[in-house]
């Protein structure tokens, strides 16, 4: 029906010579259930639809936790929209699989974007994000003071020994259920996003980034084993709640005083600021030997391979890339703005604003997750390995098994096109 009716409208428009044929562009977005986010996005869409006469963007929102599954299923069934939002590390998989087409935007337009917000694969730009996310150790100045723990800085983060000593001191005091909350309750992408930087700081990685053909030696080498043993000790010593952590306590434990420190993202920063005010500290990740790093790459926008109107889709994405929308998303959701100019306009990330530190973290420490189509599987394998080690699995055997699985997957996929 859609086809015949819109066909009739086009025919009618041609005959009457009226220019009422705005072409519809479908956009899928991961934010269903988040009213504030929807309001910002809808505002930006409305502006776009009113500002020009060629295109009308229509949004369909999906709940975030099932968004990727919905997109993969739709791609399988040949039912993708024109414009998609894409989780950064997943983009290479979708590009390689043929869901996406390169995004025709001028390099100059993205020159001031944080590198982690521009999705590149095979020498082309496929996606652009308005924001990044950053993770920090959230705690209180008063807590650190009480136990005589040094406040780390970007220039001088905690070392492994300092960090372990701090955990031990707080644990010994008995004042908290656990010194550190890692968010182990959040299954899924949180594990590789939040914890693979620890592994990288130890000197290992999820996959060897020289050619992305194997994980052998990086995920089960000496550095990785050292990381695994440290990771296991966090749970064996009761420094952190294990994988069965109650997700509700994850959200409130720091504020309720059950946890002394919480490893959490900027999106969770506002409740902490509301609760602790000036006492709040957002601290960089410890340096486990190879520098302090955090994960990078958040949601970005791209164009599906099947879209008949990549020009319109690109026009919309360029429209979104304005600082005012970046700042609006940031103000609403607490996200790290993609450009310094947007950061300056934003509520939380302007100079002297309470979350400015996260912009610094993103700028200084961000390391994107391995840019390979194989990441999707490797991430799952990594998550299971970390979960098994946390539950007492043999470190070396578990890492070996993870390496075997990742390597087998890469082989089965013919090297994933690298």
């Amino acid at each position, binding site marked *: 029906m859609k086809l015949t009716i819109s066909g009739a409208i086009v025919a009618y428009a041609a005959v009457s010579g009226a220019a009422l044929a705005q072409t519809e562009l479908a956009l899928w977005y991961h934010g269903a259930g988040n009213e504030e986010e929807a309001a910002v996005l809808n505002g930006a869409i409305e502006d776009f639809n009113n500002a020009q006469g060629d295109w009308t963007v229509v949004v369909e929102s999906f709940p975030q936790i099932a968004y990727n*599954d919905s997109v993969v299923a739709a*791609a*399988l069934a040949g039912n993708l929209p024109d414009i998609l939002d894409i989780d950064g590390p997943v983009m290479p998989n979708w590009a390689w*699989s043929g869901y996406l087409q390169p995004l025709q935007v001028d390099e100059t337009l993205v020159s001031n974007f944080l590198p982690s917000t521009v999705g590149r694969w095979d020498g082309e730009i496929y996606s652009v994000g308005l924001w990044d996310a950053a993770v920090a150790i959230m705690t209180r100045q008063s807590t650190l003071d009480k136990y005589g723990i040094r406040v780390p800085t970007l220039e001088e983060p905690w070392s492994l020994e300092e960090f372990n000593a701090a955990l031990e001191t707080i644990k010994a005091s008995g004042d908290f259920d656990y010194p550190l909350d890692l968010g182990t309750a959040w299954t899924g992408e949180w594990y590789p996003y939040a914890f693979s930087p620890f592994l990288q700081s130890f000197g290992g990685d999820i996959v060897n980034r020289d050619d992305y053909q194997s994980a052998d030696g990086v995920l089960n080498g000496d550095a990785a084993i050292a990381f695994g043993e440290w990771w296991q000790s966090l749970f064996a010593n009761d420094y952190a709640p294990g*994988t*069965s952590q109650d997700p509700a306590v994850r959200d409130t434990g720091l504020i309720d005083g059950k946890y002394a420190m919480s490893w959490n993202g900027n999106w969770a920063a506002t409740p902490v600021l509301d609760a602790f005010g000036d006492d709040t500290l957002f601290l960089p990740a410890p340096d486990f030997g190879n520098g302090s790093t955090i994960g990078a790459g958040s949601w970005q926008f791209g164009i599906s391979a099947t879209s008949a109107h990549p020009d319109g889709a690109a026009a919309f994405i360029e429209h979104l890339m304005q600082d005012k929308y970046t700042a609006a998303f940031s103000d609403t959701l607490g996200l790290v703005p993609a450009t310094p100019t947007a950061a300056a306009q934003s509520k939380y990330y302007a100079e002297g604003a309470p979350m400015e530190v996260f912009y610094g973290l993103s700028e200084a420490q961000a390391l994107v997750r391995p840019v390979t189509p194989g990441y*999707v599987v490797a991430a799952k394998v990594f998550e299971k390995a970390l979960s098994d080690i946390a539950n007492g699995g043999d470190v070396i*055997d578990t890492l070996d098994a993870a390496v075997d699985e990742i390597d087998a997957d890469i082989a089965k996929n013919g090297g994933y096109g690298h």
Partner: protein
Amino acid sequence: MASKLTQSNSAGWAFALPGFGLIALFIVVPFFFAFGLSLTNQRLVSPNPTEFVGLANYKNLLGVGMITLEPERNDAGEILRGQDGEIQYPRVRNYTRKNPDYPHLDGMREWFRWSSGDNAKVVLAKDVVFVKALKNTLTFVVIVAPLQASLALLLALLINQKLRGINVFRTIYFMPVVISIVVVSLLWRFIYSGDNGLLNNILGALTFGLFEPVDWLGQPSTALGAIIAMSIWQAVGFHMVIWLSGLQTISPVLYEAARIEGSSAWQTFKYVTWPGLRNTAVLILIVITMQAFAIFAQIDVMTSGGPLDSTQTLVFQAVERGYGKQDISGGSVISVILFLIVLSISLIQRWLTREKN
């Protein structure tokens, strides 16, 4: 079974065809499709061409091996022992990772081991997660099927009394059945929580604080048991109602006769009630077994197969591989194997419960 009334090809087909056609199109065809996929290297999404690989996927899943480890010895030939006196063995990885002397063990992992004199016998599997999922699924079925069926019968007997307000109790017992298993699993996460969980608090209160809190879903020794208990709790009401409908078809005359004969409660059950429940029992056992083999949602919501694979199940692994790891052929292999297992079990069940006349 009594002979059919009449030969009637046209009416027979006409009546059966709509239902059968839908089942054939939407279940049988996709299943054969899945079977076909299991013989290829098909990925969920991939620009690479699909290749026929024969039974390679099955071999990867089902391959097992064994190795005997000899103790580590020092230069004097004495056995090395750890702090607690346990014998030290070389790591299995020395044999299973790129060791040219043991090509048949390459890529295998330890499944379990036992001691044999000073040596250790280690059973290895190509796919340890799969064999654990298989074992857990079978455990789940073997515990749930008889336990749930008998608890349901107990409840049915309890509720089959002529008492004022018995309807209220029957409704309450049935209530968990009408709640989605996803919802139930979410609620029971609060109940099982080790942090501030309801179950720990109730047990603590009942024992005046003597009970040590347990992280029910967080440790391998209790996680599967916790899920079993919850699954029975959720589904038992339904089977209670099926038993109940069976019970209510037994004529009161028979009970009256038993009462006049002066038979005890147990005798009444054995000679009157149970024989009248034959068909019901077959139905219930088959239904519970099928449902138990398909266990998925509880795992997906509560544990994702953890901790340490203690709650992996076949359907969960099929889904995890097929969608999560985009390995549709690997997921399909598990589906086919599951089908074959349940088919053999139900054929055995049918044979055991066949009508002996």
